[in-house]
């Protein structure tokens, strides 16, 4: 028996017994759900799938569609309610989606993954991880001021992991190959742009835009590319390393034009005529040079909109020291990358804005007892120093040092429904900040790791064990805010998951249940 109802003003057919969620999904609406699994039926616990009907908010997964219903789904009011549900869940979510080192890296290198790949001696995979995030990775592996290491949780125990040295180790291995690796590239977009100034900012932008599939031309008034990098002493940055990194640029399809100066050999209007976009990364602007650039100034710098990197001149963007003094190399590069993102969006006709920081739940400081939970599953060796400082880590030293990583990033990051919808809904993980529960991590026999603080009490695993008639199974213990997931009779979680461990890990909407095996290849 089929009937019609209305969702967000669109009429839609439904049959008896269908839920609002099922009907809405058929319309192509992405209503978020955390606790819904067709096999389990509606559990009605997460309440993130709210829709409004008849003046009331109802969970769409458990509300049957009825003829003539008028349902609101994608409205600001409904979204606000869904966002609040997500934010409430985060207020009681003990865990970091991204590790502190990852969050602190201005270029967003997924450091824990790199470390696990090094530990597993998957050097090629580690190279790709590094190359995906870092332009001129070999240079950063030597010069970066490594803010990541300041955030390393192990720093409060026996010293942070030697992240920068390990980065250097990876890129050194890459350079030893006959053909160093390139990060993956998007198919050609058919759009072209020119970048003026091949210092760290310009190089990073060129790198990012070339990878995004655009035709990039890179100008520099000097005969040699690299800008301020050329002034670094050989002992800190051997020329051979810089050259090797620069040699990757033509391979990414970037047209290099050294010795071309804006205002002298070419004018801004000419560039704007020839290219779809212009990005000025000329470094600090000398007062004398300013008029020749063709862009109005704000104080001593080029005038730009800080949110879009756009100058008042059409199609023209600017970034780096030309806009705002930048001290650190890695920050200069991240500025280049942010500008690249703006240019990319503009070339694709999307609204222009700087990239947002990736969403992450943040646990904050851990006390030593909590830290110990991480240490249980990790190498207890203290920080390794390379035997030969000039040569950097040897492979065994690198493996040993990488094994010190605490794996404090979430095993489900990127695969977590809660994290996904938090991003989609712009949830603020700190809106209801409160005293958090202690961090706990229970390594189960059989390789399942249970982190109670990440459990959102959705009930999927409880239901799955019930459906599979697990001899012991799982249950909720306690009531209200203190409800916990546990195996009955004070037994271990693993004992309750004899048949459906794999399925429960797979269906867990967060990282509460995961396999402990870091499995670097999977990442």
């Amino acid at each position: 028996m089929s009937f019609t109802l209305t969702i967000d003003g669109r009429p839609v057919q439904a049959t008896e017994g269908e839920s609002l969620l099922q009907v809405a999904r058929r319309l192509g609406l992405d209503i978020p759900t955390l606790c819904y699994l067709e096999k389990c039926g509606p559990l009605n616990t997460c309440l993130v799938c709210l829709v409004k009907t008849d003046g009331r908010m109802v969970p769409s997964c458990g509300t049957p569609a009825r003829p003539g219903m008028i349902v609101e789904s994608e409205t600001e009011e409904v979204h606000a309610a869904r966002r609040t549900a997500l934010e409430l869940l985060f207020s009681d979510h003990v865990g970091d989606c991204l590790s502190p080192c990852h969050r602190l890296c201005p270029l967003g290198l997924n450091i824990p993954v790199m470390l696990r790949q090094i530990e597993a001696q998957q050097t090629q995979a580690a190279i790709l991880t590094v190359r995906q995030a870092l332009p001129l990775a070999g240079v950063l592996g030597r010069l970066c001021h490594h803010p990541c290491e300041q955030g390393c949780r192990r720093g409060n125990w026996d010293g942070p992991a030697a992240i920068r040295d390990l980065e250097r180790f990876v890129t050194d291995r890459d350079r030893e190959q006959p053909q160093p690796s390139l990060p993956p590239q998007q198919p050609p977009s058919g759009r072209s742009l020119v970048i003026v100034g091949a210092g760290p900012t310009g190089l990073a932008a060129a790198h990012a835009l070339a990878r995004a599939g655009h035709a990039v031309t890179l100008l520099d008034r000097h005969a040699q590319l690299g800008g301020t990098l050329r002034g670094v002493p050989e002992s800190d940055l051997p020329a051979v390393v810089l050259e090797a990194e620069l040699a990757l640029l033509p391979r990414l399809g970037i047209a290099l034009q050294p010795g071309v100066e804006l205002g002298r050999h070419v004018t801004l209007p000419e560039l704007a005529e020839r290219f779809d976009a212009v990005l000025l990364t000329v470094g600090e602007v000398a007062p004398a040079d300013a008029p020749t650039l063709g862009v109005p100034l704000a104080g001593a710098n080029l005038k730009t909109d800080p949110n879009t990197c756009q100058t008042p001149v059409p199609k023209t963007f600017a970034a780096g020291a030309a806009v705002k003094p930048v001290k650190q190399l890695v920050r200069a590069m991240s500025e280049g990358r942010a500008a690249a993102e703006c240019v990319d969006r503009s070339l694709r006709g999307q609204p222009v804005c700087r990239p947002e920081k990736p969403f992450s739940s943040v646990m904050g400081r851990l006390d030593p007892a909590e830290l110990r939970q991480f240490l249980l599953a990790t190498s207890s060796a203290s920080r390794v120093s390379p035997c030969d400082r000039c040569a950097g880590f040897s492979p065994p030293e690198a493996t040993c040092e990488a094994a010190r990583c605490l794996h404090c990033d979430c095993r489900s990051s990127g695969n977590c429904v809660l994290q996904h919808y938090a991003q989609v809904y712009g949830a603020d993980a700190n809106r209801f900040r409160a005293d958090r529960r202690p961090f706990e991590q229970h390594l189960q026999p059989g390789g399942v790791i249970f982190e109670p603080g990440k459990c959102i009490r959705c009930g999927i695993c409880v239901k799955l064990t019930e459906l599979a008639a697990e001899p012991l199974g799982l249950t909720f213990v306690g009531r209200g805010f203190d409800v916990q997931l546990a195996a009955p009779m004070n037994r271990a979680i693993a004992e309750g998951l004899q048949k459906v461990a794999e399925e429960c890990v797979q269906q867990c909407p967060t990282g509460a249940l995961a396999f402990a095996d870091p499995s670097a290849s999977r990442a």
Partner: protein
Amino acid sequence: MITEVNGVSLEVKAAPAPAAGTEVDLAFVDRTIARLGRAPDTVIPVLQAIQEHFGYLPQEALQHVCRSTDITPAAITGVSSFYDMFRHQPVGKYIVRVCRGTACHVTGAERVEDALRRRLRIPAGDDTDPDREFTVEPVACLGCCTLAPVVKIDETTFGHTTAEKVPGIIQDFLARMAAGDEAPTSTETIHRPRNGRTEIHVGLGSCCMAKGSDRLFHALQEGARQTGTDVVVKRVGCVGMCHRTPLVEVATAGKRSAFYAGLTPAHARALVQRHFRPRGFFGHVSRLWTRALDSVLTDQQVDDQVQDCALDVREPGVLAFLGKQIHIATEHFGRLDPLSLDEYLAHDGFTALRQCLGAPDPQAIVGAIEQSGLRGRGGAGFPTGRKWRVVRQQTDDTKYVICNGDEGDPGAFMDRMILESFPFRVIEGMAIAAVAIGAHEGIFYIRHEYPLAVRRVRAALAELEKRGWLGERLLEAAYPLRLTVKEGAGAFVCGEETALIESLEGRRGMPRLRPPFPAESGLWAKPTLINNVETLAMVPWIVRHGPERFATLGTATSKGTKVFALAGQIRRGGLIEIPMGTTVREIVEDIGGGVKEGRRFKAVQIGGPSGGCVPARLADTPVDYESLREVGAIMGSGGLVVLDDSACMVDIARYFLQFTQDQSCGKCTFCRIGTKRMLDILDRLCAGKGQKQDLAALEQLAAQVSQGSLCGLGKTAPNPVLTTLRYYRHEYEAHLQGRCPAGKCSALIQYRITADCTGCTLCAQHCPVDAIPMVPYQRHAINLDLCTRCDSCRQVCPHHAVQVS
């Protein structure tokens, strides 16, 4: 036996069997399983039996249940950790239950609890003292609100406690235990009354009993026996005037009744002698003899004391208390022996049911209830007749009717009183409902905190079965009806109908999403009618007097009467039944006699944790469903707690939110975490650590919790916060600035001794934490770092020299 200690009446019963030692008696578990069955839905009764036997749930016993029944380990762990009554650790020898009900809260229960823990040396974070003598257990509400604050040690109830009285209470309790106090005869095994012309009625509801009425009852019986007078001492249900308990009525046919309030067993014989002539010559001699003895052993004072207890019913206070009431659910209050079927029959009992059984079409009963305008008295006020009609229309062969007696609101005890006092009436209402909708099975779901109610309903059912009026037949009709009693296990949320059903099916009491409503798919997925105790208690009257008569009472949309538990900071607390539409002012000022001397009436909290505060300036609001909703409160189940100007409204909001947050089942995000985050904000405010944006954040979150929660508990939990924010925002703002205008929030107040101090040292002697150095004849001073704000010094100071700022 009864004694007054520090003005506190004591009632002592035998302690339960001490917790078993290391050996767990598995044979008991086997017997229990044999008795209750092996099906998964027996899990709660089985656990209750084990808990009652061992005092806790020994792990071995639970494992044995898993092995020998179809109950899964997940069910045992899940269920036993969900309900409050279950404990997994052995308890102390004695259990001290501290009531945290609303009335107790506003009269200082927190200080009493602190004092108890200090006196019993219970370490922070624990509930039992190191010697495992006493376990202190807070309970949501003992339902003796007029005696607040209430503490119950094992079966002994102490009313009107204070932190000051705590040492005396413990000492006395232990002395009694050491003396091996004999258990008083149960009031449930009662002698059949003889046909006396005169009767002495003793109220034997739980409140009255907590004030010693059962011992008074036995003393009066004994007195009557000794003096040989022709008098019947009779147990009756709640009289309603809880502020005057124990209340005794001497009723003689054709004469005006004499009332006595506050009698003790010591007065019993004097009372009997005042009123009755002994039978025959020997009785007369015996009377003279005992009188002579009395004059030797006691003094004339006893008789004077009895005279002092006499209550003039024409006294304006009594008239005002009773005058505005109309008794429908509590018909014949204070007259009926709760367990006498004959008396119930003599007062039109079961005529309504007989009428319904004789009706050609049960549809007519539904019609009558619809016509009467009766709405659910459990809180939401859904039209009862409409609910009945929906269940009646279902075509399933099996249908259930459930009486919801899981009255859990702190501050409410109407349902307990009705079940205790009028069990036959509720059974009759239930039977009428069953006939009307075509159900042949019914369940009373009564919370286990109401043991007397459970016992009386069970006894009443047994009496009916004995007469063959229940079971295969209903009265004389060939209508099979089976009624049983199931006890709750301590979870407020089980008052929500879908959670109640989950609980009956042997699961954690977590509400289901409605629709489907229980009327379509309820217990075991069958159509189920769930009505509140009071609703069912109204039904026989409506049938007997006709729906029109019921509908003449009350307002346009709220018909009939409503029973309220009137308690808090008020002079005449008790149980009242008034027509809908009576104003808050009439209830508080006329019936309740207003607040205590020197205090100002501030607000009334109506509807408990789901309701709100009606401020004094809106006291002319009529009590009906719509008007209350308009001002932000709800009718709720009928708890009515009066607050005077010593109440802090932020604290009240926090109190209720703490309750709902604690009682949240934890299923849905908004209620589980949302109420906790709201409470975080209120805790901050009461601790003086509020932040500027807190009020806006609280308001916003309250609205979203109310909108997004799955069931009624979560949807209404923000109400106490929203109404206090609406009417008392200035108090919230004061807390933001670090002030508690009512001087209640202990983090925001300081005690100070003024120049009026004479150096009597009383405060120093009573300070439980030695924060006041003893300096005779000098002005004392309080060390604020040590002071716990227990208020003891202020209470004992004879010169009012202790001030709170």
